[in-house]
């Protein structure tokens, strides 16, 4: 993607700097509030990713990469999947079927809670990492 | 003895052939000879078992859900097995002389394929059911392909195409569906006395179609119009031609046909349904026409090839006539023709090695240079023609006698006519060799003895002698044939 960081706009930069933390906050909110309202790991991942994409669009790929190296993204996207599938493995080790969260705690409801928390986190991590990685890949190609 | 043992010597010798290779060819050939003798002894022991009233058979392998691979010995198979194993030894002896005398290349590959083909022939001989027979039949086709294309030139490639093309097309296009059809309508594919199709409920027309699929599907039997592969295969080295035309390939074809008529259809079914009436004329046509074509060929091997086609159709006719006598004659003719024809091919090869001649018109007067060879040629020719004192007379008589059982003399007269043609195209060759003057010699000059290598000679003498022996002492064979259960 062609970026024109040298022609950056001071107003945009300031606004972005102000905006990004809020977007990240929203992402976290969606991630952990998905139980109650709309949203969940996937949407949170997208929002989280879009914060970095926004930053990248305004400040250039180079600076974004310094903040979040591609290497880290690869680790993140793998860890997300591992977290999700690993949760399934743990439930199996604890005597349940694959992804049977009841096995995670004595009280099935608690088990379900923990299970959902873990897998939503896994989804969120993978999705945000992949989204940012997609952006990097498309943007770094010229 | 378990007939499975018959597969062991030819297969077991392959690693030896490959390991010993070109560098230690003497040892390689010794190992082949040892295997050949062992194979013959195994067949002999199976023969003894059978004569003692046993039914030697192997275990089975489940190739297809209801159909298995299984070997068992019955008289026809034992006869074929004995024949093939005996001639393997002889051919090996001969080819040792020939291949070296002719400086052939890739002898290791040659002997390997030869051994595989032999194993497959044993499989065909002792096949307990159609499926096993088909498997062996196809393996023979493929393992002899490199033998045909041995020379590797453009001609060899072309011949290989024709060879594989016709044999594969017919076997996949006709034989395979015939077998599947048999499996569908008959209760099994097993060879049982009296046949499995006897009460299959097939109409006469369908029976004729099925028989036709078999007759044309087994192109190895050389019936026209699927005979072209045989002359094409002439480009192969002579031991191969001998093997192809006397033992392995063609005999597997007619042998299969005889077995199918006897044990799948049952001779009564063939006669009763009238199915054979459609194909007897084709066989008769082949007998006559190929004899005439043979007459026109100047190349010795080509003439012998067309002669083979004609002789094979005798056996096809014998099978289609489907009387006890004719089928017995057909079985016997497998042996008689084998010894006669292999003698002739050996002689042709010997002439090629010794004098580098392959055209009949150039053979004038060579009888004085190669008296033993040409003498043997004469005996072989006599046997093929079916005259005393060679074995060929017995089988021809039986077939002719069987044909009279059908109430018409057409088929017998076809045989007679072809005998006349046989005389016309075979006998002039030895006569020429002995009585015409040698054009390469100045008048009055004495011909020097220029025989083929001794290994070749031994083989020739042995087979020619057997032709004579079989005239005076055919009893072991007739006894064996007497054991066949017809119904």
């Amino acid at each position, binding site marked *: 993607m062609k970026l024109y960081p040298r022609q950056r706009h001071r107003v945009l930069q300031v606004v972005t700097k102000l905006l990004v933390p809020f977007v990240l906050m929203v992402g976290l909110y969606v991630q952990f509030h998905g139980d109650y309202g*709309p949203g969940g790991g996937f949407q949170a991942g997208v929002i989280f990713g879009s914060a970095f994409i926004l930053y990248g669009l305004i400040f250039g790929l180079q600076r974004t990469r310094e903040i979040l190296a591609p290497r880290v993204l690869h680790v993140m996207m793998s860890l997300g999947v591992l977290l999700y599938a690993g949760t399934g493995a743990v439930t199996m080790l604890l005597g349940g079927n694959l992804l049977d969260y009841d096995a995670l705690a004595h009280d099935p409801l608690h088990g379900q809670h923990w299970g959902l928390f873990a897998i939503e986190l896994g989804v969120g991590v993978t999705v945000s990492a992949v989204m940012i990685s997609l952006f990097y890949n498309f943007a770094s*190609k010229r | 003895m378990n007939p499975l043992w018959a597969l062991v010597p030819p297969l077991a010798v392959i690693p030896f052939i490959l390991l010993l290779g070109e560098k230690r060819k003497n040892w390689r050939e010794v190992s082949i000879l040892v295997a050949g003798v062992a194979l013959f002894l195994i067949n002999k022991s199976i023969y003894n078992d059978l004569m003692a009233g046993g039914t030697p058979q192997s275990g089975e392998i489940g190739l297809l859900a209801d159909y298995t691979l299984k070997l068992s010995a019955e008289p026809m198979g034992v006869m074929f097995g004995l024949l093939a194993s005996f001639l393997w030894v002889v051919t090996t002896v001969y080819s040792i002389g020939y291949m070296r005398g002719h400086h052939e290349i890739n002898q290791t590959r040659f002997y390997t394929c030869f051994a595989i083909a032999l194993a497959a022939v044993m499989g065909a001989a002792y096949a307990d059911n159609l499926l096993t027979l088909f498997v062996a039949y196809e393996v023979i086709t493929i393992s002899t392909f490199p033998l045909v294309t041995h020379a590797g030139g453009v001609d060899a490639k072309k011949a290989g195409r024709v060879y594989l093309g016709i044999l594969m097309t017919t076997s996949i296009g006709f034989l395979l569906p015939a077998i599947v059809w048999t499996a569908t309508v008959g209760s099994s594919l097993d060879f049982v006395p009296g046949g499995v199709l006897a009460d299959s409920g097939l109409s006469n027309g369908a029976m004729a179609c099925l028989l036709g699929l078999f007759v044309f599907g087994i192109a190895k039997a050389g019936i026209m119009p699927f005979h072209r592969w045989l002359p094409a295969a002439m480009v192969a080295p002579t031991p191969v031609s001998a093997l192809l035309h006397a033992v392995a390939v063609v005999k597997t074809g007619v042998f299969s046909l005889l077995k199918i008529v006897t044990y799948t259809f049952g001779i009564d079914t063939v006669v009763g349904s009238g199915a054979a009436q459609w194909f007897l004329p084709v066989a008769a046509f082949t007998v006559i026409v190929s004899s005439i074509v043979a007459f026109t060929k100047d190349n010795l091997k080509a003439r012998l090839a067309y002669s083979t086609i004609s002789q094979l159709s005798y056996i096809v006719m014998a099978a289609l006539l489907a009387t006890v006598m004719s089928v017995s004659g057909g079985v016997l003719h497998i042996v008689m023709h084998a010894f006669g024809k292999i003698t002739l091919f050996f002689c042709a090869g010997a002439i090629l090695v010794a004098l580098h001649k392959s055209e009949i018109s150039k053979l004038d007067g060579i009888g004085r240079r190669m008296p033993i060879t040409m003498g043997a040629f004469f005996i072989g020719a006599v046997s093929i023609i079916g005259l005393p004192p060679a074995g060929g007379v017995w089988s021809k008589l039986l077939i002719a006698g069987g044909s009279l059982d059908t109430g018409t003399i057409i088929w017998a007269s076809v045989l007679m006519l072809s005998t006349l043609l046989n005389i016309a195209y075979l006998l002039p060759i030895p006569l020429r060799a002995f009585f015409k003057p040698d054009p390469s010699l100045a008048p009055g000059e004495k011909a020097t003895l220029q025989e083929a290598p001794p290994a070749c000679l031994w083989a020739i003498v042995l087979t020619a002698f057997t032709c004579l022996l079989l005239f005076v002492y055919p009893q072991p064979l007739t006894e064996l044939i007497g054991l066949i259960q017809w119904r």
Partner: protein
Amino acid sequence: MTQLIGLYSYWVVIVLMMAGLYIMIARYNLVKKVIGLGLFQTSIFYLYITMGKVEGGTAPILVEGKELVYSNPLPHVLILTAIVVGVATSAVALALIVRIHETYGSIEEDEIKDIEAMEPDA
């Protein structure tokens, strides 16, 4: 008439789906094809959501103490998955397009075919 009203939305959605499919088949431009794919898939999502809707229902988020009619949550779940699949496919397709443009210098299918026809067998 009831049928017309009851099925109207299905039919429109089907027309939309076919518009997407048509773009995928008839357009030679590779990007346009992917756009068509997006249109096609989004319309399929719409079809599913239409199936889940219950007249007078509310979003399937439980409200304590009230007896509400909820729309069917299952199609929503399925479509959440399908949306993700859709964007993943588009991303891979676009990445391929970028590389195709880079190596062929074109993103028109017929031009690429012409170029390929000139190349020898691999």
